[in-house]
């Protein structure tokens, strides 16, 4: 059979652009002398390249979904929308890293290059349509992440974070590969569609092997999105890594992980089968655990970054909750959630990063009385905290509401109540920041240089969608609604 490997390569332009960008950045980086401080061309090139990628993805959207490279990559609106979110997140993080003091000046260029690399991994994951692509995506994402986590070379915590990340990552990748090898061994195919076709008609023996294999397979993805019980690495890594890196980790790998989980669930488990029941049960338990453990642990944290790390675990849990009801309603809800999650996370981390740069740490008390010094920033942070809690009329509420309503629609009342009660728990620690910012007097009157006019403007602009999506969410919902997943 003759296969045309390059058919429809046009749909692959965003990824190709990213690869060119990464190589280009490495070349530009090589022209700088070792001690040269201002490496602005790297940033300019990176942002131009990322914006070009963004535009390329936009052109890709709305077209007919297509599987390319002999069905190992699939380009559909679902993956494109998530890629847009990841690119936006990367652009914001690249800008943040430019003025952050948490990364050594000389290593900032490396950071940008690696971020683009991780983004390529994220794209691969979002589009993966066979086991091998999926594994490649996870590894591309992970290996660069390990380096990124230990970017503060002289800092003990950062090195610890990197090592921890690498160890955990290595083990879980191994476990996942082990599971995948069994799936391949039993079914004889690594194509998602091939696997999906066989799942409803398995013999008992096959099922006995495949059930645990899928659990092992899940371990790999669960590790990437820090689902409980694979979350142990996450707070340490989040706290130890430089703040821009943490911001990046909270967005790109997490969304890529959610994307692949949704795809796997919807491709493999649409037809009724005992496997489906088992998988849904697994997702149900893991998602309930993830949101609860993330929230409860976040309460006791003293560092804002660590608190945000735990809270992002619980948000991953909430996004996972939508997996228990397979179908358009759940996907639509999770896409909307991902969009709002992007903006909320960005604003929260931007402000934390700037405050941390000033004081050298991100203890809660550093936020005391922020409203008396930078009222706009305190208001934006308050908005984000209320939005993360899920108070209307902010976007976070609509996002949670959509997940909740799709859960209730599928009659998962218990999970819906658990989700709701988790919001109450999360309100406690989100309010803690609000309380400090608004109800306490400031510790010092020194100016925080990071809150210059431009940065304040950027933060305000990033907060705007949280308002707008909270009141006028119909357009984005319809947009998410048509971003259907393509199952070949």
């Amino acid at each position, binding site marked *: 059979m003759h296969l045309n490997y390059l058919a429809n390569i046009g749909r692959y332009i965003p990824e190709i652009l990213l690869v060119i960008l990464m190589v280009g950045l490495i070349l530009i980086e090589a022209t700088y002398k070792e001690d040269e401080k201002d490496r602005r061309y790297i940033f300019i090139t990176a942002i131009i390249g990322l914006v070009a990628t963004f535009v390329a993805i936009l052109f890709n959207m709305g077209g007919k979904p297509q599987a390319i490279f002999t069905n190992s990559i699939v380009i559909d609106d679902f993956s494109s929308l998530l890629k847009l979110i990841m690119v936006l997140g990367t652009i914001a993080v690249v800008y943040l890293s430019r003025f952050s003091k948490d990364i050594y000046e000389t290593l900032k260029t490396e950071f940008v290059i690696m971020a683009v690399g991780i983004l390529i991994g994220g794209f691969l994951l979002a589009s993966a349509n066979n086991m091998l692509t999926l594994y490649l995506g996870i590894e591309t994402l992970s290996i660069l992440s390990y380096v990124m986590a230990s970017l503060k070379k002289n800092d003990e915590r950062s090195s610890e974070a990197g090592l921890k990340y690498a160890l955990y990552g290595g083990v879980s990748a191994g476990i996942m590969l082990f599971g995948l090898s069994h799936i391949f061994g039993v079914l004889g195919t690594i194509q998602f569609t091939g696997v999906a076709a066989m799942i409803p008609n398995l013999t008992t023996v096959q099922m006995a092997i495949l059930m645990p294999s899928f659990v092992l397979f899940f371990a790999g993805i669960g590790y990437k999105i820090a689902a409980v019980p694979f979350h142990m690495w996450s707070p340490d890594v989040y706290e130890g890594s430089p703040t821009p890196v943490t911001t990046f980790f909270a967005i790109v790998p997490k969304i890529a992980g959610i994307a692949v989980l949704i795809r796997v669930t919807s491709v493999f488990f649409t037809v009724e089968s005992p496997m489906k029941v088992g998988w849904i049960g697994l997702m149900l338990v893991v998602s309930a655990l993830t949101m609860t453990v993330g929230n409860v642990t976040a309460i006791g944290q003293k560092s804002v970054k660590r608190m945000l790390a735990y809270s992002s675990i619980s948000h991953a849990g909430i996004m996972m909750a939508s997996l228990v009801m397979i179908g358009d309603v759940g996907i639509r809800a999770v896409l909307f959630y991902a969009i709002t999650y992007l903006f909320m996370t960005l604003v929260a981390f931007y402000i934390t990063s700037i405050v941390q740069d000033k004081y050298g740490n991100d203890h809660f008390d550093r936020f005391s009385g922020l409203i008396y010094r930078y009222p706009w920033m305190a208001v934006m942070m308050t908005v984000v905290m*209320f939005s993360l*809690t899920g*108070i*209307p*009329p902010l976007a976070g*509420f609509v996002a949670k*509401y959509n997940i*909740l*309503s799709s859960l*209730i*629609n599928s*009659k998962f*009342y*218990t999970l*819906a*109540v658990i989700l*709701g*009660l988790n*919001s*109450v728990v999360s*309100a*406690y620690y989100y*309010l803690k920041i*609000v*309380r400090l910012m*608004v*109800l306490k007097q400031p510790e010092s009157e020194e100016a925080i240089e990071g809150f210059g006019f431009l940065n304040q403007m950027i933060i305000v602009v990033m907060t705007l969608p949280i308002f707008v999506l909270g009141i006028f*969410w*119909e357009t984005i*919902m*319809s947009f998410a609604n048509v971003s259907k997943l393509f199952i070949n």
Partner: protein
Amino acid sequence: MAGSNLLSWILWMPMLGVLGVLLMPKDKTTWIKSWALINTVITFALTLVLYCKFDQTQAGMQSAFNVAIPWIAQFNIFYRLGVDGISMPMTILTGLLFMLCILSSWTQIKKSIKAYFALLLLLQSCVFGVFFALDFFLFYVYWEVMLIPMFFLIGVWGGENREYAAVKFFLYTFFGSILMLVGIVALYFATNQSVDSFNILALSGGKFTQLNVTIFGQAVSFSKLFFVFMFIGFAIKVPVFPFHTWLPHAHVQAPTAISVILAGVLLKMGTYGFLRIAFPIFPDSAKYFSTAIAWLGLINVIYGALCAMAQTDVKKLIAYSSVSHMGFVMLGLAAMTVEGVNGAVLQMFNHGTSTAMMFFMIGILYERSHHRWIVKPDGSRGYGGLYTQLPVYSIIFIIGMFASMGLPGLSGFISEALIFLGIYQKFTTITVLALFGLLIGAAYLLWMFKRMFFGDVNPEVKEYNDMTKLEVAYMIPLCIAVIVFGVWPSPILNIMKASVGQLVSLMATF
């Protein structure tokens, strides 16, 4: 002004006020205060216009004022407003109390004046939203948004322990709302996501009696399950025992005006929720649980009164008396008779005015004494002999206290009498026991009065000035309200009669 947009005007007028306050410079405090005052006066006038145009014969929503505009059409969410005989008294109460609160805050609030008035007006808009909303989603949005201004109003301008109180208030209410939200969404899907699936009126009438849901493999009645969810959501707001523990903290720590709003209007949102949502939508379950509700109401009455008696902080005493008085409202609701429900709605209004008076008076006293102890922690008397030193203050205080106690001739009496008439037809034992609540109520109020106003004159008290003209000015409307509605309650009873009758006859069919 077109009559049909009147509700929107009332709802958005305070938001206009917020906008105006935000645009004013921070140091022009008199401008800000005057603007807020003008704004609330206009709003109050608008509620009076609404009252005048109110058609008392119409049982359901006043068709002249209904508003329904699609908001998120894809999910059948509407901007749907309406007013009937149950929400009308609450609307007037809200308009009145916020206006008086602006006056009361005029001199009492000293820090961050701009933010304070902006938040207060925002709160007013949200309260109107709750009383007007006929779309479940809209209702929930207003119900929740209200937490934000309340959190800051208690947290920033409150007493020493304000942060704890603010957080506790927020978490408690949020917990209740979440359960309510689950119920709202369940109703939405139970009615097949149709155009009317968020329409509170269309959902009413007991349509879910036959439906079951499966929880952990057990079939549970849909109606009973979600009635309990909604009940908890509203009960926290009322507050019904055992969900009342946030209230003493929030009341004591909040600044005067916010205590007034909290006791006068916000607690009523809970009972309003029963009347508008929980009862009409799940009449069968309301009937099923009515004995339990009545007992909870009784516990509120007795337990609240006993707690009040034990207090040495006068503000806490009044806070617990609110628990006790809201218990009477719950009793009236549980009776589900014409007299009972009429009494309950009237009590919601009357308690709003009388408790507001008490909290205002305590705030005025606090301005002079800077403490609120009837008996100080070291055992000495906090006040004493106020009666001889502050005659005007004492007279107004007596009016408020007796109205609160339910003395015949003042407003509290009529509503409590109606409630007893109503509840006696259903629960004889509870009626008898609840009467003891009245007795304890008289006891703790009179005992408080004796310790504060009679006896030897405390040297500190000699330095207090009597009420200023401003303070008298904002107490007079409330004095008039408690006296006039004590002898002539028909202006309120007449507007609620048709709507209450409709609700009661609906309940009677189950």
